[in-house]
Structures are given as structure tokens and as C-alpha cells.
């Protein structure tokens, strides 16, 4: 008899937990995957540096953990095999020539004249011809963090595509809005290295978009240095310092977006890096760069295989990374209580009715309790007598 009681109890307990788990998944989208769209919008030999920029960033995001199938790389791709290239089939972003960016594993999705404004929009909004293979599509969902990197020649509210078309700021804003409507991203980081890059973001309206550009309106973005062996400039300043920041990082580092944005020194850049955060809900100090540039997501540590802890109820979750490879056991603390809940609120109010409002007020109440763990434990202890009473009654 006691045995049956215990099974029934545990069943009920599981049911309860299951319910709460299901609830949390549906109403706030978790960050579940990372995508990167890297675009080099220029062609011709003298724009070598733009291709080098894009390839360097491609290499960085791959190194930080975004797999190739989740990177859409758009390149004119006319440098490596250009007859003017002194080093055939190699592309460098530094005059020391230590690192060949055009190594074995470069998967270019859109190449040459395929890099057009139209294709760029199709990738972003997901409106493809039927024949387009999955590898050329951005198959993101509402849990995706997307990094959109663009480099090329631009001006006030436009970016040139291969000297034949231009992308205007309202086009970009429109595409992002469509993506938002179609729930193609959770958060979007737009990074642009071009002259007057800041002007490209002026029309953005969609929440969840974070934008950073290499220069303000009226400023030029300059190249970093000239490789006098190859005879062209090989990297732009903004990208160079971005890369310098990431070179110090590995997948497990916890540097925040603030530290990235703070690393841009206007005197080194010869322009003012501009970032637009008003559409972004989280605080930048609390967002690790790997949320965009890597594939590091919030994982929830559970003690056993099936015991799932409600994220709502955890004030702070300790996340342990798999540390077989790295000798230093890095523990990372993701402070996510306040902000995440605010997002939760936003989402729920947007999408669902009043029930969720009640839930959130209840949730707010929960928040006031300081020691959550003990509260949960006490709650469980209290439930035990309740259960026994109910079982006794039904008996």
C-alpha cells in the first residue's frame, strides 16, 4: 500500500512539473540556435579588403561554434583566383600572411553575381524559389539569434551591392520587420562596416534588433593597413579591431557585448563606432558576445536526467560548461532573472490573453521571495501532507 502511494505521488509530481515545463516553453521563446549571415557587397580586385573582412568574420564565428550549415556566406569571391593575386588561391587579412582565410573549409553560399539585393532579401525573409537548396536558406526560427554582418561601400542610408545596385536603409528595416513578423529571429545583431554605417540603421523599428556600425553619418570608414606584397589594403579598421577583440576569446569566455562595443577606440578606428540599442531589451553588459558570434546558448543544468527545473523559478542559474577539453573549469553565471522576465512579460502580453497576465503577476509575487530554493522545498513539504490528506479522503 505504501508502495502504491509513493508511485502515485511521484506520478502526480511529474505531472505537475511537466505542466510547468510545457508552460515555460510555449510562452517565452528560449534562445535555441545561432545563425550568421555574412555579406561582402563589393567585388573587384581593389576591394580585396571587403572579402578579407567577411572571410575573417566567417572564420571567427566558425571558431566560436556556429556550424557551417548555419552560416550563409555571400561573397563576390573574385579575389582568391584573381589573376592579380600574388598568392593564388589564398586570401590574407594581415600583411604577415600567417593565416590563409581561404583554406579548405570555406563554404560560400552565394557567389559572384548571386550576391544581389534581391537574393539578400530572399535569404533574410525566407521567400525562396522552390529549387533553392536548404543550405542556401536561412532556416531560423523564433528562438534564433542571428548575426548579420555586412561590409562594402556605402553612403548616407545606402549600401552598394557590387557597384550595380544599392540596399537602402528602409529596405533593410523592412526586411527585418518581415523577419520579425514571420518569427524568424529572437534577437538580431546587425554589424556593418562601411562608410556612414550608422545611417543604415535609422529606419529600424523591430524589437530585438541590435545594430552596430563602423562610422557615424558623415564619417568614412578606413582600411587598416596595406599589404605591400599583395598591393592592396587587406582589412578595414573596424573589422580589424573586432577581430582583435575576438582573437583573445574562446568559446567559453564570458565577455559581454559592452566590452566589445567598448573596445572600439575612435582614434584607432578614425571613425566613431555607433550602436543602436533602443530596440534591444536586454542589458548589453549581461549579454555575452558568444550569444551572437558563437553558438553558446543558455543551458539549464539539471541534477538528474528527467528532473527539470522551471526556469521561471530559478533566480540565477548556474551553468556548467562541458569541461572535458579545457583544463580550467570555467563556470559561468548567467544573470538572467530580471531581464528575461521582462521579456517574458512583453511576449506574453503581446501574444496571449489575460491568463498569462495572472500567471505573470503570480510570477512577480514569486520574485519577491528571496530564497527561492527553500521556498520550493517548503512548498513540496507542504504538499506532502496535502497529498496524504487527499489520498486518505479518496481511499
Amino acid at each position, binding site marked *: 500500500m505504501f508502495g502504491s502511494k509513493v508511485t502515485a505521488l511521484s506520478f502526480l509530481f511529474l505531472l505537475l512539473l511537466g505542466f510547468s515545463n510545457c508552460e515555460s516553453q510555449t510562452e517565452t521563446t528560449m534562445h535555441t540556435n545561432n545563425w550568421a549571415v555574412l555579406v561582402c557587397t563589393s567585388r573587384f580586385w*581593389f576591394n580585396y579588403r571587403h572579402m578579407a573582412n567577411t572571410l575573417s568574420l566567417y572564420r571567427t564565428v566558425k571558431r566560436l561554434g556556429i556550424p557551417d550549415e548555419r552560416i550563409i556566406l555571400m561573397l563576390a569571391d573574385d579575389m582568391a583566383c584573381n589573376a592579380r593575386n600574388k598568392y593564388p588561391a589564398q586570401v590574407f587579412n594581415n600583411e604577415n600572411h600567417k593565416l590563409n582565410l581561404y583554406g579548405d573549409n570555406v563554404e560560400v553560399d552565394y557567389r559572384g553575381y548571386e550576391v544581389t539585393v534581391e537574393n539578400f532579401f530572399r535569404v533574410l525573409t525566407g521567400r525562396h524559389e522552390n529549387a533553392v537548396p536548404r543550405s542556401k536558406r536561412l532556416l531560423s526560427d523564433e528562438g534564433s539569434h542571428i548575426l548579420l554582418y555586412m561590409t562594402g561601400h556605402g553612403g548616407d542610408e545606402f549600401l552598394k551591392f557590387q557597384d550595380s545596385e544599392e540596399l537602402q536603409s528602409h529596405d533593410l528595416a523592412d526586411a527585418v520587420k518581415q523577419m520579425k513578423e514571420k518569427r524568424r529571429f529572437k534577437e538580431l545583431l546587425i554589424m556593418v562596416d562601411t562608410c556612414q554605417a550608422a545611417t543604415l540603421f535609422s529606419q529600424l523599428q523591430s524589437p530585438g534588433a541590435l545594430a552596430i556600425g563602423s562610422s557615424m553619418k558623415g564619417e568614412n570608414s578606413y582600411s587598416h593597413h596595406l599589404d605591400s606584397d599583395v598591393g592592396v589594403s587587406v582589412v578595414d579598421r573596424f573589422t580589424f579591431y573586432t577581430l582583435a577583440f575576438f582573437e583573445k576569446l574562446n568559446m567559453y569566455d564570458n565577455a559581454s557585448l559592452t566590452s566589445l562595443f567598448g573596445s572600439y577606440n575612435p582614434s584607432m578606428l578614425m571613425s566613431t563606432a555607433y550602436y543602436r540599442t533602443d530596440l534591444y531589451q536586454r542589458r548589453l553588459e549581461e549579454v555575452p558576445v558568444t550569444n551572437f558570434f558563437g553558438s553558446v546558448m543558455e543551458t539549464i543544468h539539471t541534477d538528474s536526467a528527467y528532473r527539470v527545473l522551471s526556469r521561471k523559478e530559478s533566480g540565477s542559474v548556474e551553468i556548467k560548461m562541458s569541461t572535458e577539453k579545457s583544463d580550467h573549469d570555467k563556470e559561468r553565471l548567467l544573470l538572467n532573472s530580471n531581464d528575461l522576465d521582462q521579456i517574458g512579460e512583453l511576449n506574453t502580453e503581446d501574444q496571449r490573453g489575460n491568463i498569462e497576465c495572472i500567471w505573470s503577476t503570480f510570477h512577480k509575487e514569486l520574485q519577491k521571495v528571496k530564497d527561492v530554493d527553500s521556498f520550493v522545498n517548503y512548498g513540496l513539504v507542504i504538499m506532502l501532507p496535502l497529498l496524504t490528506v487527499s489520498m486518505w479522503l479518496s481511499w
Partner: protein
Amino acid sequence: MGESESENEAPKVKLRPIVRLGMFLISHSHLLSVVCCTAGVLTLLLLPLLAKNTYISENALMPGSANPMLSSQEVSEANGLVKDLTSLDLKRMASGIESQRLIAQYMSNLGAEVSFQKFYPQSNQFHPLHFFSSPDSATIRENISCSSYGLNTVGIIRAPRGDGKEAIVLVTPYNSEKIGLGEALSLGIAYSVFSLLTRVTWLAKDIIWVVADSKYGEYAAVDAWLRDYYIPVFSGLGIQNAEMCHGLEENTIRERNMRDGFKRAGTMAAALVIKVADRSEQFEDSLSIYAEASNGQMPNLDLINIVNYLAVHRQGLRIKVEKMWSLLNCKWLKILGEILESLGHLAKNLNPQWKFGIPAADYVEGTATLTSSLYYQALGIPTGPHGAFRDYQVDAVTLEISSRVSSNNKGRQNDFLLRGGRLIEGVIRSVNNLLEKFHQSFFLYLLTSPTSLYAHANNLDPSFEKNESNHPASAADELGITLRSWKWLYAAKKVLVVHLWGAVVLLLPYFICQIPNCTPTTSFVVWVLLSIFSLLILFWILGSPFSYVYASQPQQREWALLKSVTISAAFIGLCLMSVINFATAEIGALLMVPMCLMAHPLKLDVKSRKLRNFSRVACNLALGFIGFPPTAFLVFKGVFEGFDGISVGDFWNWLESIWAWSSATYLYIGMIHLPCWILCIHVILHPC
């Protein structure tokens, strides 16, 4: 004229503002003409101030961004060639062929494709039917003996990964009969670059090295090669003929391989003519750039800019652009420069944004360069072998490098070769980066210094436009009411006859040339006499309508009509000429516009006996004197070069050179300037 027509209808309807403006301008046409003319001349004087700094507008060029790869190894190879060539010259064992074979040997050792191209000299004789077209080479070949041909040696490097559609041309003219040290050095420079380019991996365009045999002139050799390059001859006759009288009979099979057929590469992106001056500079190595092609066409400015940038900032050469040296010592120019400088300071004090003052010395120098640039463009004669390329729309310049000391010193010579070679390498690498043609740059410009220019492409020279704009105004004024009565038709006929006479005058030199043993002076005198004679004949034949005119209308109107039609003709002529050769039109306008506007019958002026009229008489006489082409030429020559030793024969020689090069300036002088001058003189001497 349209304006005057609307003037007639004016009283009936309410006038539109444009018509009223037109009437206002017409009623003040004298004042307007004077203002416009002075404004034009002033603008011309202000051009050095208005000149802009040049910049390289084509992004793809990126001059100097790559380190030069030319090393002492290539230079020592080139030194070998120079030594071999000079020793050949000392021995004088075999003229011509030996040196070409040596060069071909050197080329093929580098792995280049070598071919020879044979050509025959063309006489620079004036032929009226061939003025606009180059004479057919086949017809000339017939009566030339085998011994007198030139032999160009052409080496081609194929770009290893290029598509073979484009090429860059290097030209080194040299006289195969007597190789000077300068020519040997220029071959050395080209060879060092050539040998480097056979090894580099970054070539996107083929390289063609033409060693032009300048036995019959540099231009002729390059022109002959270009003609064969662009106009292929498909009959085997020419080749057979060439084989028959070949000097190198003992050739090996390998050399035969070199020679079979004419080798081509892609379309030419740019051409560089390399020369080394035999004279030596006093202070430092310097580089002269010659760019003017026929009819004042200039190569794309970017090409000059690259050369200038690389020479100054990379190789430390001093750039020299042709100047009118005598202008440098001009007192009034200096004073003008100082006035402008102080004006500039004043303007700067008023508003720091206004920066147009330049130092007086710069101004004088700018003017000297500008004058020379204007003159050489107006002449319409190419200043070097690069002119041949321009006829095929290929941008080309001649680079003449002169070294500081005569290069007997071995170390000096190495250094000289290295610098020259690196300059050429840099330019080639820059052009190699080019993706298409040179584009989005200036092509109509006057240089005021190596680093600044005055482009009339974007500013279309206000002076000239203003000068022009006043013609119809004054013409319309004098036409006035008579327009409707078709009386102006007689004047127009007269003008037409005089212009026809101009064409006849143009053709006369062809016949005068046929007279054997003629000194320039006598030919000139004969020409003048024949011209006057033909004028008289024309008047005798076609002159009858004029008597009718005299009878039918009051004479004081006749000269006014004639003047207005003359002005219209001059306007049309200058407009046409400004399209063909802007510099000619500019200089021509400077001489002709005041003359045409001032023309007034002497008789009337003398009758009225006022100071104003006398001054007009003086002006008319002076302008009439200076407006006559021979006197204008001699006066300017005297001013710039001193009056001693000047004879009228110089003008003949000058004209001969102009027609030999088929310059449009020749046509301009005969068909527009001279008739207008005659008509002006006619107006001045009019018996009214």
C-alpha cells in the same frame, strides 16, 4: 536672329521676360561684347588660379601600394644587355640586324614570344586626298628597295592566369644604325622590367614590348606596328616579300619560329614609351612627361597622375612639364601674379574660407606651363611616339628620364636603371590592376603644373563661351530690319566665296611642294602670290553679283551686313573647331573675336575726326596686323624666342610640319581664320 524676329512682333503682345531680356542685351550689344571679351581674356589669365589639384579618380589603380619587386638581379641582367649593345655599336660590324637579333635573343631567353615586324618608311609628303586618312601602306611599298626597311622587334609575355584579352605596351624607340647610350639605357630599363614580369604571378594583362626601329623616325615605326596590329593583312604577299629580302639568311630554325607571323595580344589598356635623354641634368634625376597627341588629344589624366605620383613619391624623380621658358621672366606676369597674390590675401582676411590666392612665383610658372600646354595642344602635332596610340584610342604617354650625371659611373648607372625600372614596374602594376578601360576621369584639360590642371571638361571654359555668346547678339543688332528683305543673302554669298577661296589656299602647298629646289622663303612667297592671284580670279568669276548689290542698296548698310555675316561665320567656325581641338579654338578666338567685333570702315572713322574714332582706327589696324596668320606667328615667335634670325620661311616650315601631321589646325587656319581676316580687312577698307 530668332531674337530679332521676336522683336519685330513685340509691340503687339505683352512681352515675355525672355524676350525683354533679349531686347535689352541687343540694345547694349556693344557694351556686352566688350565686357564678355575682357571677361574671357581675364579668365584665361586667371586659369592658373582656378586650376585644381589632380587626384587619381580611378579606385582600381592604387599606384604605389605594392612594393617594387625589381631588384639588383634584373638590373645586372639589364646591364649585360646595355653593355652588349654598346659594344655592338662600337664594332659596327653589322648595321641594324645584328642588334635586333641580340635583343630578340635576350627576349626569347626570358621565355617571351618574339616576333619581328618589317615596315617601310612613309614619306611625310602632303597629299590633299589623304589628309584625313593615313595613306595605304601597300601602295607605298612597291617602289622601295629591299634594303630600306625598318625592323621592329616585339616581345610578348602572356599573363599566366590572365584571360589574354588585354595588354600593356612598352615601347623603346632606338635607332638600329647608331645606338646611343641613352637608347641603350632605355632598352636596359625596359629589359629589366620585362625580365621581372616574366617571373611575377600577378600579371592580369599581357605585356608587349615593342623595340621600335627609329631609323625612319620614332613615330613612323610605332605607327607602322600599330597599323599592322590593328589592321591585319591576310594576303601572304607581304610576308613573302619580307622573306625575300631578309638580311638574316643564315638564321636557325629557332629564329624562323620567332619570325613566323605577326604576334598579337589583347586590346591595349595603356602604352608607355620609355626614353632616356642623352643630355644630363644638373641637379637630380628628372622625368619629363609628354602627353599631347594629334589635334590636342590628351591621354586619360589618371595615367599621367600615376606616373607623376610614382615618380615623385616613390622614386624621387623630379617631374618636368614643358614650359614656355621665356614667360618666366616676363615683368608684367610677375606684377599680375603679385596683384593676384595680394588679392588672395585680402580675400582670405575677409573670409578664411576663400582660398584662391597662390604665390606670385607659382602663378608665373603656372602660366608658363599653361601657355606651353595650350600651344602644343593647339598645334595638333603629337609630341612623341605616344601620339600613334591615341589614334587607336589607347592612352599613352612618353616618359623621358634624364639622369643627373652622364652615366659612366657604374654605380650611378645601376641606380639609374633601378629607379627607372621601378617606376615603370609601378606604373605597369597599377595599370594591371585596372579592370576595364580608364574611365571617369578628365580627358580635356590643360596642365598648369604636374600636379594641377585646368579641366574644361567640367567647367567648359567661361571665357570662350562668353566670347561666343556675344556674336549673335551684335550680328542680330546690325541685321535689324534688313533681315526680312533677304538682302543679307548677298553678304552671305560673299562670305561663302571667301571661305571657298580659303579651301583653295589650303590646297596650294601641295602643288608648291612639287617645285624642286625650293627654299622655304621662296615657297612662302609663291604661296602668297598664288593665293592673291586665286582670290582675284574668284572675284572676277563670282564677283558679278556684288555689282548688283552695290547698285541695289545703300552702301553704308552693306558693310554692316558683311560684318554680321562674318561674325556668324567666325562663330560657327570657332564652335566647330572647339569640338575638334579646343586649344586651337581658344587661341584663335583670342585673335579673331576682337578683330571681328572691332571691324569698322576706316573711311567713316576718318571722316568723323573724333578721338574715339581714331582710337578705333588704331585698334583696327593693330588687330588687322596681328590677325594675319603669318604675322601673328612671327610676332609670337619673336616675342618668345627673340627677333634675330626670323624669316618668313619659318612660317612655311611651321605650316609644313602641321600639314605633315594632318593637324586640324591647318584646316582651321585656312578655312576659318584666313577668310575671316580677309573679310575683316574688307570691312575695314570698305569704300562707303
